[in-house]
């Protein structure tokens, strides 16, 4: 190749690398800001902050554990419910509706609309409509019939981990299903045809040929959904009950890291504010940890990396 052409390549590479560097820079800057702001709290409370269970601003006793638990629990519920549903929608649109492309677009657009609903509307809707509905038609029956299981043992008031998890699930479905849909649609038909010619049923084609090919993309969808679930603040704060507690009881009020920041940052100052910034730092580290674990999981699952034909 001539030098001129190489230069174009180099320029592009530099520009793209700059964009990638920007992201690293942004994250580093965020981490630095968070660390600086929480320095006072870290030096005063030390590692006990991470395992402490009490949060009392008046007496200056702070512990982050209930909030970490809340974030993990609500995100887990959201993804456990949201991922299968998103995949289901994606599979339906890309596999079953192949002959009805317009209907597929319409359904897809409809689900995507959920992404356009602002968080605060999810919160208001959650409070006014979903919470009482869930309490009366889902939580109460579960409590009455299966109350001996620790998961359902508390009296439900509607503002608890369960409701927050459901609201989060609804919020992450549009993102996850949109990305999954695209990814599944992009799987070449040759993959499917090969399987069919071997005598596979529709589901077997999907399960053994389409999904593995799209594995990386689905993981990407999962990450985006996870991101939304962990970071979502407004909607969760309105329905979770905001009680710092660690319990297996899904019907108990709970508290997440981001809700705590949203609720108390504005009124805080001094060491109290530093403690809240440390909560932000912990949220950052929690997201980091979850991402590391997810990547490890993906790496183990994809030992036979798909061949890019």
């Amino acid at each position, binding site marked *: 190749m001539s030098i001129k052409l190489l230069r174009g390549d180099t320029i592009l590479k530099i520009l793209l690398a700059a964009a990638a560097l920007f992201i690293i820079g942004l994250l580093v800057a965020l981490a630095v800001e968070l660390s600086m702001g929480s320095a006072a709290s870290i030096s005063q409370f030390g590692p006990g902050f991470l395992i402490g269970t009490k949060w009392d601003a*008046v007496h200056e006793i702070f512990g982050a554990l209930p909030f970490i638990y809340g974030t993990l629990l609500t995100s887990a519920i959201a993804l456990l419910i949201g991922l299968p549903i998103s995949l289901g929608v994606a599979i339906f649109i890309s596999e079953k509706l192949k002959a009805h492309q317009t209907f597929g677009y319409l359904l897809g657009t409809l689900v995507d609309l959920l992404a356009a609903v602002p968080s605060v509307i999810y919160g208001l809707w959650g*409070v006014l409509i979903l919470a009482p509905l869930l309490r009366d038609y889902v939580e109460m029956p579960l409590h009455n019939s299966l109350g001996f299981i620790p998961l359902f043992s508390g009296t439900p008031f509607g503002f608890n981990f369960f409701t927050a998890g459901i609201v989060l699930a609804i919020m992450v479905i549009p993102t996850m299903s949109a990305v999954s849909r695209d990814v599944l649609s992009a799987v070449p038909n040759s993959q499917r045809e090969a399987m069919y010619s071997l005598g596979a049923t529709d589901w077997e084609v999907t399960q053994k040929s389409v999904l593995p090919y799209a594995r990386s993309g689905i993981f990407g969808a999962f990450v985006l959904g996870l991101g939304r679930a962990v970071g979502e603040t407004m909607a969760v704060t309105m329905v979770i009950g905001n*009680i710092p507690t660690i319990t297996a009881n899904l019907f108990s009020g709970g508290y997440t890291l981001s809700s705590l920041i949203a609720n108390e940052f*504005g*009124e805080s100052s001094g060491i109290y504010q530093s403690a809240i910034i440390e909560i932000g730092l912990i949220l950052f580290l929690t997201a980091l940890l979850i991402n590391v674990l997810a990547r490890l999981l993906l790496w183990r699952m994809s030992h036979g990396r798909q061949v890019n034909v």
Partner: protein
Amino acid sequence: MKSTYIIVLAVVVIIVIIGSVFAYVYLSKPSAASTSTTKLAAATLNGAGGTLVYPLMTVWQSAYSSAEPQITVNYNPVGSGTGITDFTDQTVNFGESDAPMTSAQYAKLPSGTTALTIPISASAVVPAYNIKLANGSYCQNGLKFTGAVLANIFLGTITKWNDPAIQSLNPTVPLPNQNIITVHRSDGSGTMFAFTDFLSKASSTWATKVGKSTSPPWPTTPGGTIAAPKNAGVAAAIAENTYSIGPLEIAYILENTGQTGVYYGAVQNAAGNFILANVSNVAAALQAGASSGLPAGNAAWTNVSIVDNVYTDTADSTIYPIATMTYALVYQAQSNYDQGAALVNFLSWIVNSGQALGKGLGYAQLPANIVSIDNTTIKMITYNGKAIES
């Protein structure tokens, strides 16, 4: 062929973006012919503070811009704490708070500056509830509470609605044998400061265990506890859970769209009367609380508490005991003449002419004694050492 679509799309998107950006320049209307009586230069005032006063503030903004169209006032209800922080950071012209600045907050002010505290409106906290009585009907406004009973309910020592402590105050009401669900604010609030202040005075257990604060560590009560953000969250939680009780701001409940089933109770004052809060008895409480004297505007207002002042006031029989003021915070020495003059004019206006506009929204008017203190304080605002004329 495909690339044509892309190019068309890109061009349209760019046009829309640029169009919106330019829309600003062309849409901003030039100020109408001035109807102002003073010769104030055009200025923009930015303020940040509590959510309580926000509806009233928008009424003020609207009326004031007819009186002085060249002055633009922006107000962002970010919360009292952030309002004070923004004021300290000097990113706003005035801060607003439901609780006076603490000594720690005074200490953070830029050196050499003095903050003026100017009460601009009033608020009160009422115990709101949703109770289905033993006879099947919903308990209406006016269920009677004392401070001690409220403290015990929120501490969790009184757990049932038909507890003798509550029943004895309300002998004719068929209270149900049900657990009390307590609801409280999950976010910090200046009015929660007033409420917990009142509870601290009524119950020494509350004072030691919880104390008074904008974000108190509310105990979890045996009958169940829910915390929700903002008055709206608390009201929704109460509306959806029968047998619940929680503190709400009076303006919220009076202007409310009507959460069905949510009513509020009467609280006993120092004179022994059970008072159902309204704009008059809240204003009266402010008057009584201020009569024992308020600090000068440029002094520290940290210990100012209407709740404390009226707690032992047995003489005023009709005042509501959990009343509080909301304050505007400005720097005594202004660095920009036009903004300083606008500030003086605006503050003067809301403290004098603006008060009457709040009645329809449930805001009590500042009593005369506080208005006169405010007027004195506003006269302290200076530019280059000279007081700015109102």
